[in-house]
């Protein structure tokens, strides 16, 4: 018998209360003064003793009640030997990318099979495949044949396994299961699978973890292409500033080595480089320029030679060669400054694969916006109706439009394409302009991974003139210091609207003269033209959007996905309904989303899987005992006798309730007797 919370025995001090009330207080009775004792008689001793005897029973009940309550809070339990059939056997097999190294996966399945065959026949078991998402393969069953069949369906994948995900799955399973759980993990127990926050991996109390490591507890040397930096789209392959690929080659537990790295374009080696990689370190290699043909080009950076995990010696990405994209810049007839500033910034961008075509608002009647990557409406609130209608169709089908509101906006409250009217104009010129306040740097048009000092470079921007619009239904990306929205985003159909509530003419603000203007135009162009969304690289288990959430099931066009093996994983029904798709395999995917724009991606495993260094034995031991509130010798890793705790507090509280009722009845009886005596 033990106690889960023995410190509640401090409450035993409270037992002094009934002792004081019943015994000590008797001896400290305060004498009562009377005029004379001549008429009083000394109390009959036997009567007083009888009363004290009755009180002793009450005292005993009260003493017992307090003792039981304290005992219940200390949570006593009986430790009984748990028979195997009482617990649920949980067999977890790691199917992550790192299990492709050597014979790890085969060993894991073999050991799991042995465990299933050796379990008591009546013990229920479940099979879980641990990968990008933990997959429960069987319901609780004691049928060994069914369990073995489920085990054989597990195949190694390209996904990343996290023990935090395993912990979450086991917690969910534990909540729905009443008995103890014996968890047997068959894995290479990579140290990278353990989350940074160890608490996320802690298992529930009633789970006993046994780790079956198949990595041999020794790190395996492995090289990998840790990262690649390549453009998703190239307009001019000869331009070295754009047309170059940079790759980082990293070794894990490796000695210093010379490695030959090749860039393959559409399966053909384009360039090779030889680099020296320091022990357990990394080196970068660049390929520039290189030739790619028009359309999608499947590129790979490949390390020659072999190592423990050859599958991660290649990094895949897709480069799309396109002609420079045209941008339609619609401005008011009197405004010649805005297109000038915009074009200058556009030419200064990193990609530089855009051509600006500017047109006055009254000359847009015959222009077809679908021929442009995106459209800019610079202070053009009055558009020919045919062009405005064409723009609506353009946006609805996935096009992007940037709307800016300059000095002409106030004359006409209507804003083309935008659902609301212009509400009010704020003029800050008298006070030297208003600062830009809060900016959502996670939004693609102003995206900065680590915003630089001075509010990401926006600190020097002074807004003199801004038109406020109704922000309902839109995402406010940037605000002025006084809370007036400056940049709003809205999705209409499959397209995007971006509303900058000031101008681009250096009159309504000084943004065009700020360095951040180039970054803003670059990111805005990428966002509105979907550059980078149709090609590039992704990580296994990431999701791609197949249709806009705004479509909300109204869309009937079918999407199509072709996986690296050339199969179509989506059924016809799924092709009409699903909004996102999980990239489950490494390789090249072809996707035809609902907006008709084909996309191709190179998909690579999570590089944390490339570090084959196993978890240290100390860490394994710590994890196995992390849920153990009673430290004991080597539990979990080397399974000792199993015990089952039987809680007793419920029975003790029941007894305490009975004693409390008896105490109430007895004390009531005493009180009524005293009333009669008076």
């Amino acid at each position, binding site marked *: 018998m033990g106690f889960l919370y023995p410190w509640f025995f401090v409450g035993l001090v409270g037992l002094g209360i009934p002792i004081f009330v019943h015994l000590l207080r008797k001896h400290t*009775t*305060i*004498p*009562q*003064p*009377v*005029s*004379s*004792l*001549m*008429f*009083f*008689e*000394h*109390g*009959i001793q036997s*009567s*007083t003793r009888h*009363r004290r005897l009755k009180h002793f029973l009450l005292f005993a009940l009260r003493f017992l009640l307090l003792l039981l309550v304290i005992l219940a809070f200390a949570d006593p339990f009986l430790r009984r030997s748990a028979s195997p059939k009482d617990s649920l056997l949980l067999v977890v097999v790691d199917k992550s990318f790192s299990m492709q190294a050597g014979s790890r996966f085969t060993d894991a399945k073999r050991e799991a099979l042995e465990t299933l065959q050796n379990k008591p026949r009546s013990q229920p078991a479940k099979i879980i495949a641990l990968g990008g998402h933990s997959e429960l393969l069987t319901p609780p069953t004691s049928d060994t044949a069914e369990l073995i069949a489920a085990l054989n369906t597990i195949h190694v994948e390209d996904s990343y396994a996290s023990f935090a995900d395993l912990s979450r799955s086991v917690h969910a399973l534990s909540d729905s299961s009443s008995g103890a759980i014996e968890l047997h993990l068959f894995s290479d127990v990579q140290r990278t699978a353990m989350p940074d926050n160890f608490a996320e991996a802690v298992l529930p109390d009633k789970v006993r973890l046994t780790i079956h490591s198949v990595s041999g507890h020794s790190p395996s040397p492995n090289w990998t292409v840790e990262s690649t930096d390549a453009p998703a789209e190239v307009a001019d392959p000869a331009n070295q500033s754009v047309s170059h690929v940079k790759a980082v080659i990293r070794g894990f537990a490796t000695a210093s080595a010379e490695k030959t790295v090749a860039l393959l374009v559409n399966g053909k080696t384009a360039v090779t480089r030889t680099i020296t990689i320091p022990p357990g370190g990394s080196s970068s290699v660049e390929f520039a320029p290189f030739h790619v043909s028009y359309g999608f080009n499947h590129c790979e950076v490949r390390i020659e030679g072999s190592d423990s995990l050859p599958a991660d010696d290649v990094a895949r990405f897709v480069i799309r060669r396109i002609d420079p994209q045209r941008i339609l810049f619609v401005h008011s007839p009197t405004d010649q400054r805005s297109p000038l500033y915009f074009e200058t910034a556009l030419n200064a961008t990193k990609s530089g694969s855009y051509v600006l075509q500017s047109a006055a608002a009254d000359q847009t009647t015959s222009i077809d916006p679908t021929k442009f990557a995106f459209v800019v409406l610079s202070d053009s609130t009055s558009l020919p109706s045919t062009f405005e209608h064409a723009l609506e169709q353009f946006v609805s089908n996935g096009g992007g439009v940037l709307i800016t509101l300059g000095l002409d906006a106030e004359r006409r409250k209507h804003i083309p394409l935008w659902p609301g009217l212009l509400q009010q104009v704020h003029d800050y010129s008298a006070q030297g302009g208003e600062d830009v306040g809060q900016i959502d740097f996670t939004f693609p048009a102003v995206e900065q991974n680590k915003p630089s000092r001075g509010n990401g470079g926006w600190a020097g921007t002074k807004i003199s003139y801004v038109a406020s619009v109704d922000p309902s239904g839109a995402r406010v990306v940037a605000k002025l210091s006084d809370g007036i929205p400056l940049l709003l985003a809205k999705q209409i159909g499959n397209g995007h609207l971006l509303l900058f509530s000031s101008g681009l003419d250096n009159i309504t603000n000084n943004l065009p003269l700020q360095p951040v203007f180039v970054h803003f135009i670059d990111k805005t162009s990428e966002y509105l033209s979907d550059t980078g969304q149709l090609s590039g690289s992704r990580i296994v288990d990431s999701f791609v959007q197949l249709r806009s959430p705004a479509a909300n099931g109204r869309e009937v066009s079918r999407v199509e996905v072709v996986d690296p093996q050339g199969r179509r994983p989506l059924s016809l029904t799924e092709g009409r309904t699903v909004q996102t798709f999980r990239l489950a395999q490494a390789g090249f995917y072809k996707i035809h989303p609902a907006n008709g724009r084909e996309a191709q991606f190179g998909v690579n495993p999570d590089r944390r899987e490339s570090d084959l260094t196993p978890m240290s034995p100390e860490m394994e031991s710590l994890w196995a005992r992390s849920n153990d509130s009673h430290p004991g010798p080597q539990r979990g890793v080397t399974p000792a006798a199993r015990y089952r705790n039987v809680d007793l507090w419920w029975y003790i509280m029941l007894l305490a309730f009975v004693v409390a009722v008896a105490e109430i009845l007895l004390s009531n009886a005493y009180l009524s007797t*005293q009333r009669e*005596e*008076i």
Partner: protein
Amino acid sequence: MERFLDPAILASISSLDLVARTVVDGFVSGLHRSPDFGFSQEFAEYRAYSPGDDLRHVDWNLFARTERLYLKRYQGETNGQLVILLDASNSMQFTSRRPSKADYARYIAASLFYLAIRNQHDSAGLIVFDSEVRNYIQPSTRSGQLRRLFAALEQAEPRERTDFSKPLEHFRAQLHRRGIVIVISDFYESPEVIVHALESLRFKGNDVVLFHVLDPHELQPVMKGPAILVDLESEQTMEVVPESINSSYRYKLQAHIDDLRSRALAARLEYQLISTDQPLDSMLRDYLSLRKAGA
């Protein structure tokens, strides 16, 4: 009137003078409606002249009309004397509610002094005693007597034990004139001893009244459980159980009261049992009736 004679209300008045005035004025205003009592200098009767009578009392107007000599008689022609023996022993400080027995006794004494001196023009004196005579104010009608009496009452704080023999010896030595003697005490003494000590006063022609003052909790004690009791005078302690209160205590107390009353009556002493929650007018009524009988 009752409202002003309630002891609990009087206990909130700190000045004995004011207490006495409140009690007596309230009492007298009630008497105006009563035909049974009169005051001195009021006409009582005519009596035929007999030789030797003082001619100053002859009603010459009546003689002019009837040619017969009649003497005109008045009530209370002579001034009485009031002496109060006040018990100031420790047992008098027992109280279960305000006022205590000692305070209640002082209210009685003060009211009687006020009535006697201010209303009846009697001489009044005081003996405060416990086991000894602690204070003695000789009976007098001099101006300032009432103030002296009140001052003596103020100083009569309870202490020591009760002993009736010594103050009575002192009193007998000082007493030269008959009058009314009022003993105010809780009489925690053998009735035989009490009556024996006081009956000598009666033999000398005094009207003796015993005011037996007890607290309501002495008459009807309440005890919720076994308790330790301590005697205020002897400081002896005794463990007592409630059962004995319900049986022996009440029986013994009643026997004591009955014995004291019967022995007092046998010795022609007036006896009155008073609870400290009673109004004070009954005591004043007794005094006036005694005075009238004496006149």
